[in-house]
């Protein structure tokens, strides 16, 4: 097990280095100049002589060779210094510290609800295969995995915000500041973020469960006269969860991807929106830092998922 974890950590490190190289150089391949974007959008251009551009370029180290810039950045990251945003002129670490908790708040809720309701729905559909419950759940999961998140967001806003006035249309409040308002504000964004995971988990759970309940040991359990509840929960469900757990690991990445759209539609000041603004502004420093942190999170979650397989299915052994 220890050897396996060490091997996976080394693999994760290699992936992380590749991510840093890719994001660093791809951002710089984009045509455009982050300083000019900053100046053009700040109306500062009108007051700034051309030589000031060179001064700013030097200030952000953009006049140095690319490899020097890369290693300077990596060196900073290793020291916990993510640099200063070109567009916002703020410490990137501080910007991320403000934004990540918001995205994590929504993301964790979406993961929780996506997993809980997805597993339950898939379970119900499998156990009641071909019955009315299955005939409702299965088509809904098709819709869930295909519906565009931003479109769903607009529909929810129209229905629950604009027409029914049940929920606030946009914005974010910390639950520590105002729990009730915060809860009302996050309902629609969390639904949007959770819907794909919920549907995918349900579909995966249904198909895994259908396979497991045909296994000999389940048939044996039935023949022993155990109750349906005991067979499903104790014997079938745990083994059906492995592909679902894999899906949940992938779901973390999908949630970060979804947050880019959801946070824009619902005006939520999370890391997804910061990423969008920074990409448009070609703010290399912010994009690199956010991508790096997301990569670390996704790699860590997937490592945990891989390790957890052994608990869900003791037949799995790590070489």
């Amino acid at each position, binding site marked *: 097990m220890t050897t396996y974890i060490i091997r996976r950590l080394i693999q994760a490190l290699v992936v992380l280095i590749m991510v840093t190289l890719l994001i660093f150089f791809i951002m710089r391949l*984009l045509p*455009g100049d982050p300083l000019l974007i900053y*100046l053009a959008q*700040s109306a500062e*251009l009108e007051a*700034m002589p051309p030589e000031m551009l060179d001064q700013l370029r030097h200030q952000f180290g953009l006049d140095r060779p690319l490899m020097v810039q890369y290693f300077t950045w990596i060196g900073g990251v290793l020291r916990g210094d993510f640099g200063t945003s070109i567009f916002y002129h703020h410490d990137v670490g501080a910007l991320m510290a403000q934004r990540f908790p918001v995205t994590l708040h929504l993301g964790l809720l979406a993961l929780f609800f996506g997993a809980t309701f997805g597993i339950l729905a898939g379970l119900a559909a499998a156990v009641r295969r071909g019955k009315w419950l299955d005939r409702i759940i299965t088509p809904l999961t098709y819709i869930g995995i295909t519906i565009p998140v931003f479109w769903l967001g607009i529909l929810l806003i129209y229905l629950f915000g604009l027409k029914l006035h049940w929920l606030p249309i946009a914005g974010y409040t910390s639950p520590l500041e105002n729990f009730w308002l915060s809860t009302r504000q996050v309902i629609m964004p969390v639904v949007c973020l959770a819907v794909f995971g919920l549907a995918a988990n349900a579909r995966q759970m249904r198909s895994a469960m259908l396979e497991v309940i045909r296994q000999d040991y389940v048939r044996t359990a039935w023949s022993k006269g155990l109750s349906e509840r005991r067979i499903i929960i104790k014997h079938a469900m745990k083994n059906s969860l492995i592909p679902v757990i894999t899906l949940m690991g992938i779901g973390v990445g999908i949630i970060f991807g979804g947050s880019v759209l959801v946070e824009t539609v*619902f*005006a939520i000041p999370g890391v997804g929106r910061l990423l969008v*603004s920074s990409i448009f502004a070609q703010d290399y420093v912010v994009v690199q830092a956010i991508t790096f942190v997301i990569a670390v999170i996704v790699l860590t979650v997937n490592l945990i998922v891989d390790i957890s397989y052994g608990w869900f299915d003791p037949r799995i052994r790590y070489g």
Partner: protein
Amino acid sequence: MAPTDSIYMLPVAERLLTWYPNGDRRAVLAESWDEDPQNKTITYHLRKGVRFHDGTPFNAEAVKWNLEMRLAKNRLTDGKYVKSIEVIDENTVRVHVTDYHNQLAFNYGWQQMYSPTAYKQAGGGDEEKSIQWARTHAVGTGPFKLKEFQIDTVIKYEKNNDYWQAGKPYLDGMEVRFIPDIMTASAMLEAGEVDAWIDVSAVQNVLDLQDKGMKVNWGPGFFWAILPNSSDPNSPFANKKVREAIEYAIDRPALADMLGYGKFEPFTQMAPKGWPGYVEGYDPRPYNPAKAKQLLAEAGHPNGFQTELLANAVTSQDAAAAIQAYLASVDITVKLDLTDPGRYAAAAFGTGWKGLIFAASGINPDSTDLYVHFGPSPMTYRTGTIGKSPEFLAANEAALREYNKAEEIKKIQAIVRQGGEDAMIIPIFRSAQAMVMQPWVHSEYVLIHTVVWDAENDWMEKR
């Protein structure tokens, strides 16, 4: 909200001078100002008894500090002319310059004033700390104090009870929330979650909300034009006849009507109607595709030619496609280069462009923008891609040195006419910029310009 936040600091930090709606200069923190072109000085007489939000006095020393700070950071328009800034007395400050033209007094007076004491105290002597503090804090003299600032999210203001205009502001506070999606913003206004939606360029949404009973302030919008690469002798646009052909080939009234739902003003010259430089009835090249083809043939392109049009994909995709179609009708094959705002800005303001660019610039109520964007040493389109005739540059010089208002306007009109005669740029239309409000909200924001906001006059009826 990010670097553009200076606009949202208008309720907090006031300027020495601003504009009246007709473009005349209006004193705010300055009571008056004297211009002395002979001795090359500008003297600002400051309003007495004004205090910053931190209780410190707004005086000549504070103005000197603010201007010098901008000079030191290279952030003062026409700062290159400043020789020295002299404090004459508590309420009088004089700027000595090395050369003089009629834009200087306004350019220096246009700066927002911040408390030097607050800035210095925040850093405790450490300049870097002060700079960091100033990124999210502002202490000015305005009708509202900055209560909270979250980048890209929200700005909260509270009433300045010691404001120098007695009885104002009328509102107890304001909150500006940044909503990136226009559908969401529109829904929030319609649902009554917000009182106003400021700085809106989505005309269709504005008209829809207007139909639903919302009030709308229509502001001056932006000046949209095709800028040719005419300084490159190898470019087809170096030939005036080709530029004229482009202008003849585009039906600007139809284009403006289609894109602006009746709210865009088609342009026939480098000035919108009502602007000081507007030349009544001047329309050198109305829509005439046959004439365009004739000019192209005379210019040695009887079968047209190929070129490219760079445009911002976020703001001008439809307009660029329409221009492409119009030019195709006179055999000019246009390859559209629809780009992200970053590459657009880099080309327009930094590196230049190959063929044509479809670009927007501001429309100030006075002549400032003409020089800022198209003058002899422009601040924005300064790449040198647009060729300018000696006559055009001379006309600019003459207008900049004129100190009689009536004569100045005539000379600005001469610039506009010369730009038209040269077909220097191809003006297309003025877009619309709006503020949409609930019926109970009263504000004049954006009517003059998005950079002028007298928030002390805003008020709301009780609901």
